[in-house]
């Protein structure tokens, strides 16, 4: 089950395999939800406002550097997508089924 990121009404873009997204979730569980509220909300509930996501993820990668190449690749791809989503009302994670 690949995971896709949808920014407002743009077509979804793949961000990770299911197992790859599981690694992102494992990593997100090490983060303080108070410091990274939007990113943690996206991980846990599948959607968030786009404005702060790029900043939060960049800071999170500094605070808790990814230890595997797979995870680093997934997070870097996610960061690029977040940078294009700063004015988005909603960024959501989907499995491509609608």
């Amino acid at each position, binding site marked *: *089950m*690949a*995971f*896709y990121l*949808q920014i*407002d*009404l743009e*077509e*979804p*873009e*793949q*961000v*990770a*395999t*299911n*197992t*790859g*997204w*599981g*690694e992102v*979730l*494992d*990593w997100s*569980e*090490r983060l303080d*939800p108070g410091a990274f*509220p939007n990113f*943690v*909300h996206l*991980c*846990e*509930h*599948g*959607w968030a*406002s786009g404005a702060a996501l790029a900043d939060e993820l960049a800071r999170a990668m500094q605070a808790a550097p990814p*230890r*595997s*190449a*797979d*995870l680093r*690749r*997934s997070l870097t*791809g996610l960061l690029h997508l977040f940078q294009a989503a700063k004015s988005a*009302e*909603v960024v*959501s*994670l*989907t*499995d*491509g*089924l*609608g």
Partner: protein
Amino acid sequence: MQSSGRSVSVRGGFKDGRRATGGFRDEDHPRDAKGRFAFKGGSSARTVGVGRGPQRVAEQQPTPSQKAMLAKQSAKHVGKEIQRYSEEHNEPILAQGLKGGGHNALSLRDNEPVDVVRTQAGKITDGIELKTMTVGGNDKITMKASAQARKAAWMQENGADFHTVIFDDRKVFNAHGPGQHDESQRVLLYRRGFGSFRTGGMHRVADMAELRRLIEMPAAALPKAAQPSTGYAGFK
């Protein structure tokens, strides 16, 4: 179409140094001075029985404009619970079910265009995208042209076929309450290839043995509902 003949190790190592599920590298699992795993969560979460915990933040109430946008989006958003369910239940079932007859099957990490690969003698023969349906109404696969191009490129690069498998678990997931699933109600759907299509038109598969047969079958011999779209350039 020629196969690249690219080979992989199926014992933890993977092409380009990437790993498949099941591989364990000590450097990925830092430990403290006493040799204990140093961090909660991370890729060692299942190994040490921590992490993968309950949700830590309550779901926000969307603003009216966010609510409208969520309603308009083409696909349903998916939170942690569904990902965990698919990773811990369905991917292992699929990977295990695809083994046999000299084939191995592995789940992939990072952002590969496939979830599970099937290998034979260390060479990838097939890539499978697994989707899990847990709520009603989500009966269409939508895929951006660039995602389809990546999958086509992956096929060319590996000389492998591509398959879409759906576990329709709408009557399975939490059937008897939270965390209480009824595996007997699973419906398995199959179609060769990838793309945007309705799940209602896919071939209904009886069991894993039939799924293996379908995956190994030449495209022209597949049941009509399992056949790929026009333009699919497969190897079987």
